């Protein structure tokens, strides 16, 4: 008899706890898709660290609308079909409320139509192609990071100041390199109609797999330009800078602008081999501003991981906070309500105050350019001085972006 009572008690407690458990377990699930393996896995690792830091901070402060935040990380491998599979897993299997991520522009551009089918909001934190908040934009897709147009607009403003008249480029031979050059040409021409640009067959577009840039360096140097706009990144940029400096490329015969030169992985790998006094652009620079938000981000990041946050860490970190802000504004985790809350949302992130424009879902965010400088406090070159271009000035209008929702 006694045994029976115990048994029923046990069952009762089990049922009760499972109820309570289910209630307490109500979580806000965020799915992250980054390159976690292969040649570019460093990007994914940085993003994961940034995201985990944000989640930890938010959970310590009581979660989002009282919900615990849980992160799910998937590997895009940088390939469109794999990235889509990862996103499908997050949406259909893990049933996430929110998607954050995407490194590669090509991946972002081809995956975006499916996001609309899955009816789950996505904040892009890295991919720079203007198209995802332009020609292929949709209701569910947002971007918190600086896009190519914003970055290049700032470059054009800077280029005008240098006074250089004849420009050429070195860029990777794929959409990013070509688009960067087209936009640069377009913006600088608007700002200063007197500038000239070398025709397409005379500029340098080394294929992505290039490791030996000498032929391109020779080509650019022999065309005797006043300014060179360089949109190489990652390993290409490291190889280029090393080979170019030994061939006298940075001797000051012409202006040099690196559209994405100030990425942590590049500066760290190059160390003191990065020439000083070159203009480099960045999506986020950890020393660019002294706001409390930025200080606390950089400090806690450094404390947790022993490194300074890269732009990708910043993107993922900020996107989590943007989701929190949207959820609080909506008062719900409902996907549709989150989408409406994100539209026009204004919030402060480490890099400054941003606003997700209603028209194309691109964040209006400041662009940072700086000159490389040595500083013994850091193992790599830092930017000094840093020039901040106001988001309003560098973001093309919605009409120009070509987005229609």
């Amino acid at each position, binding site marked *: 008899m006694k045994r029976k009572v115990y048994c029923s008690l046990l069952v009762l407690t089990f049922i009760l706890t499972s109820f309570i458990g289910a209630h307490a377990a109500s979580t806000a699930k965020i799915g992250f898709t980054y390159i976690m393996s292969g040649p570019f896995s460093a990007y994914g690792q940085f993003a994961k660290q940034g995201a985990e830091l944000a989640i930890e901070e938010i959970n310590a402060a009581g979660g989002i609308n009282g919900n615990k935040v849980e992160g799910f990380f998937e590997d895009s491998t940088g390939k469109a079909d794999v990235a889509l599979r990862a996103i499908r897993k997050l949406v259909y299997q893990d049933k996430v409320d929110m998607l954050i991520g995407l490194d590669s522009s090509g991946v972002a551009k081809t995956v975006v139509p499916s996001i609309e089918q899955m009816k789950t909001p996505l904040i892009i934190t890295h991919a720079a192609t203007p198209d995802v908040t332009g020609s292929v934009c949709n209701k569910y897709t947002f971007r918190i990071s600086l896009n190519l147009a914003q970055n290049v607009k700032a470059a054009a403003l800077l280029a005008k100041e240098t006074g250089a008249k004849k420009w050429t480029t070195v860029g990777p031979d794929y959409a990013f390199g070509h688009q960067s050059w087209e936009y640069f040409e377009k913006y600088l021409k608007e700002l200063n109609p007197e500038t000239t640009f070398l025709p397409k067959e005379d500029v340098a577009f080394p294929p992505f797999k290039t*490791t030996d840039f000498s032929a391109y360096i020779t080509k650019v140097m022999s065309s005797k330009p006043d300014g060179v706009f360089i949109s190489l990144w990652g390993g290409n940029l490291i190889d280029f800078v090393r080979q170019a400096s030994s061939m006298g490329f940075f001797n000051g015969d012409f202006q040099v602008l690196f559209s994405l030169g100030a990425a942590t992985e590049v500066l760290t790998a190059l160390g003191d081999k990065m020439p000083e006094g070159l203009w480099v652009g960045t999506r986020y620079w950890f020393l660019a501003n002294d706001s409390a938000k930025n200080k606390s981000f950089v400090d806690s990041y450094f404390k947790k991981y022993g490194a300074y946050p890269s732009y990708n860490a910043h993107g993922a970190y900020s996107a989590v906070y943007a989701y929190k802000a949207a959820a609080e504004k909506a008062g719900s985790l409902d996907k549709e309500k989150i989408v409406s809350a994100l539209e026009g949302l204004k919030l402060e992130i480490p890099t400054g105050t941003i606003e997700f424009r209603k028209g194309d879902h691109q964040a209006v965010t400041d662009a940072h350019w700086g000159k490389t400088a040595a500083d013994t406090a850091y193992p790599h070159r830092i930017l000094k001085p840093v020039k901040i271009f106001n988001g309003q000035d560098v973001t093309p209008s919605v009409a120009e972006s070509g987005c229609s929702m």
Partner: protein
Amino acid sequence: MEILLLNILNGLSWGMLLFLIAVGLTTVFGVLGVLNFAHGSLFMLGAYLCMQTMQLFDSFWLGLLIGPLCAVFVGLLIEKFLLKRVYGRDVSFQLLLTFAVLLILDDAVRVIWGSGYHVVEPPAILNGIISVAGQDYPVYRLFLVLIGPLIGGLLWAFFHYTKWGKIIRAASFDNIMAEGVGINVPLIYTSVFALGTWLAALGGALAAPQQSLIPSMGEKIIIESFIVVVVGGMGSFPGAFVGALMLGLLESFGTVFAGRMQMAIPYILLAVILLVKPTGLFRKGV
């Protein structure tokens, strides 16, 4: 005129690196009959081991000496435990097995040294610029242009004037015959694979001051090495040399004339050569 000369130098220095990798690949194919997909990964391993040695002893030359030798050890393990079992099996099995080795090596290196970029400094004596036809040109690249033929010459002498070299040549023509005259064929196979590994790793160590180190650096170069080997004639030593120079120079001049089709240059070369001469430019044999 200067541009012509500079492009020739650029093409030669790139071609010499390709040659070092391709000659190992082609010798291994000639003797073992295996087209090694993981050859590029051994190149990558050579670069990383050179970097590691440099960090320990602070000398590029020691890195160049010790790094490739450590890679040879890894190569021996691969031959002993894996490749040995697929000699004579279908081509597709050999390709898949070496592809698996590529996956393992690339990811293992990523686990050990991280996925970030690494750089290796050339030794001080080669770290300057020299004036070539009125243009600044890095000394290290000239060093590459010279070291390629040097190593090629030494290899040629090895194959033609030493007993072991002659045995390997015999084996590459006909390994049954080699067995018939009492040569220890398994030992030949192991040593040839070790030689191939050493050449690939040496190429990697030599390339290290020139390009950033990343675990996937071998995948970039393996396809072009395949092309060199096929264009030159599979298993042909002079073929590897000529093929590598052709590809190096074509790619260098491609930056001037090919425009947006630069990327396709190696494949066009491959297709054209195979259509004109289905077995490549040179006959098998080192």
